[in-house]
């Protein structure tokens, strides 16, 4: 049976984000929470293959109880089962501790129902680390294909998956034994408009909540949350904006004059020569 596991994270919608100029922290008040877009696209691909092959999609997330809305959104998009790993002790986790909690839970899920493919977003748009997926793969000793842009084929009979991944200069086509992990780019699938029955199911869905001990496994308290996180964020802030350059008002001096002034300025700074030299 095809069983896809998708790891999702709730993130603040960074399209409209503000940084508190005094504290350097993200202003979370009034910022809507959304499913990390890379995860949403990964989930859409997992659901697409489930619809094609039959089977099941399980989503898992680690976070506070407010993440339930994001699990419900995953059910709306076609996931069958949602698990939220949620405990106060998990708070303050870096990518090492996060990957421990996720890997431990995924191992249990895999024992219940063997997983064919693991889908992660390539990174979360709030932290931008791109470390949790690879971290989980290492802990579970799974092959990992990062920057996946397309699944060409899933061969359940022989246990192989064929995946395209974008590297800087070319597209690699890789065939790998399953189970394997993909960290996905947005191109992997369009997010569909969910059918009404899935939406209605999601509105009534209560995800399973696994805590430190109230669940099918006990987590090692030395490896979770702050205790399990060697990373210390020393300071957060926004880099200063670069000094704006001189402006020449075309209405005052005319376009031609403005261009000439700008070119002269660039030439004096030695920039123009480099650019023109490069062009010749």
């Amino acid at each position, binding site marked *: 049976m095809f069983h896809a596991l998708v790891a999702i994270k709730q993130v603040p919608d960074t399209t409209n984000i503000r940084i508190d100029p005094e504290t350097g922290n993200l202003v979370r008040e009034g910022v809507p929470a959304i499913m990390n877009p890379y995860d949403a696209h990964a989930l859409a691909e997992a659901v697409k293959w489930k619809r094609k092959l039959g089977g099941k999609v399980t989503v898992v997330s680690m976070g506070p109880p407010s993440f339930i809305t994001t699990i419900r959104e995953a059910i709306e998009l076609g996931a069958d089962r949602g698990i939220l790993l949620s405990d106060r002790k998990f708070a303050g986790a870096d990518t090492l501790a996060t990957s421990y909690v996720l890997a431990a839970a995924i191992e249990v899920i895999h024992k219940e129902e063997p997983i064919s493919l693991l889908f992660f977003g390539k990174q979360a748009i709030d932290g931008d680390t791109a470390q949790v997926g690879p971290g989980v793969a290492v802990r579970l000793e799974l092959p990992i294909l990062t920057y996946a842009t397309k699944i060409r084929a899933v061969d359940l009979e022989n246990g192989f998956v064929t995946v395209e991944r974008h590297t800087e200069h070319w597209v690699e086509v890789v065939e790998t034994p399953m189970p394997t992990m993909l960290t996905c780019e947005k191109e992997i699938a369009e997010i569909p408009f969910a*059918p*009404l029955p899935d939406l209605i199911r999601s*509105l009534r869905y209560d995800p399973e909540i696994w805590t430190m001990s109230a669940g099918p496994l006990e987590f090692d308290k030395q490896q979770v949350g702050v205790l399990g996180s060697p990373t210390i964020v020393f300071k957060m802030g926004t880099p200063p904006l670069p000094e704006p350059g001189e402006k020449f008002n075309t209405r005052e001096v005319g376009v031609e004059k403005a261009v000439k002034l700008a070119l002269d300025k660039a030439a004096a700074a030695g920039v123009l020569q480099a650019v023109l030299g490069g062009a010749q």
Partner: protein
Amino acid sequence: MNKHIGFDAIVVGAGLAGSAAALVMAREGLNVALVERGQKPGSKNYFGGAIYTHAIAEVLPDFMERKPKFERPVTEAGFWFLAEDGLTKMVTQGGKLNAEPADAYTALRADFDLWWAAQAQAAGALLIPKTTVVDFIRAAGGAVVGVMTDRPEGEIYAPVVIISEGVNNLLTQKLGLIDHDLEPAHQALAFKQVISLPAKEINARFGLPDANHGVAASVLGDVSLGLPGMGFIYTNKKTISVGLGVMLDTLAEYQLRPYEVLQRYLEHPAIAPLVAGGQLLEYGGHLIPEGGWHDMPQLYTDGAMVVGDAATMVNALHWEGTNMAIISGKLAAETALEAHQQSDFSVRTLAGYEARLKEGFILKDMKQYRRFSRFLETHPEFMGTYPAFLNDALGGFFSAYGKPKRQLFTEIYQSLTGRRSLFQAAGDMLSMGRAVLGW
């Protein structure tokens, strides 16, 4: 074959009317689907005014204990008459307006509607967001037995559908309950800005003792360049809602750009200091169906009823609409409950909705004010001449010119008769009375 999605009742649109209907039906044990096209209730709305508590209390007597998302109680209300360079206010404060809970609260609908829908959800209604109803499912005889949404496998069945789709009444038209688009002359385009200022600053500028006091004012005169329309200004906790409504045909006829008219209003010497230094948070507009009685659709058919703005339940002069929406939703819900008891969803039972409306104030008011929207169009002097005259007259009265008073009164008299003859003025007042009293 897909599983058939069925409910006891469907409500289309989680606005004030829709959520009220869903709440009343769910509380009595019906399985209700409340379908909303927005991401959340309120997200498609751009109203910024006052919500009346008498209507909320009729649906939810203990509403104050449920922490409604109000902004400020309206403790000062009135008319502001704008001349080109002056302002005359006729406001009332205290007295009835000091009641607890207040008769009216200012509100921002993105917050209020979410709270209001949550009350329906708490009663057991299922809110289905991000889903647009596009058509009806009809039985062989034509009775409505469900709706079709824009989602795949998107049919929902129910023996009764309450249509609270708002001013854009496409579904009401689809059912043939009204045979025409609302005319531009019968719709106002209301546009406004929400301007953020510290609460203390708002209190100081509007002369309010604290954030538990608020102002609601109708602004007439220069605000709409003397054309058929009305301005408004409302204080919220930390924002001011300020804008105006102008009839659509007027905007078109005079080629007015809403943002220019609004900007002119905000730059008026009496208004600018109220909003100065504030941060613009939102700018937008919304249609208001002001055609009144003459535009009302047929209110029910087999399996469906129409409530709120979709039924043009708006009283433009009194800024009423939210209360009629809530009460019409409640009355339609009670009719649906009766239909379930009798297992008869035909017009025989649903006619009870119109009967209930006739018993209350809604249809009485709608009928009484049936001439009002035409009145504004045919009597632009109430937006132009009279506000200017009032400012002249009071300005003169309270100035010490060093002239004999008799001359002052002559000037005031002439400032009126220069604009409008006494005979015309008497006629204007009479038509105003007729329009309001419905003679």
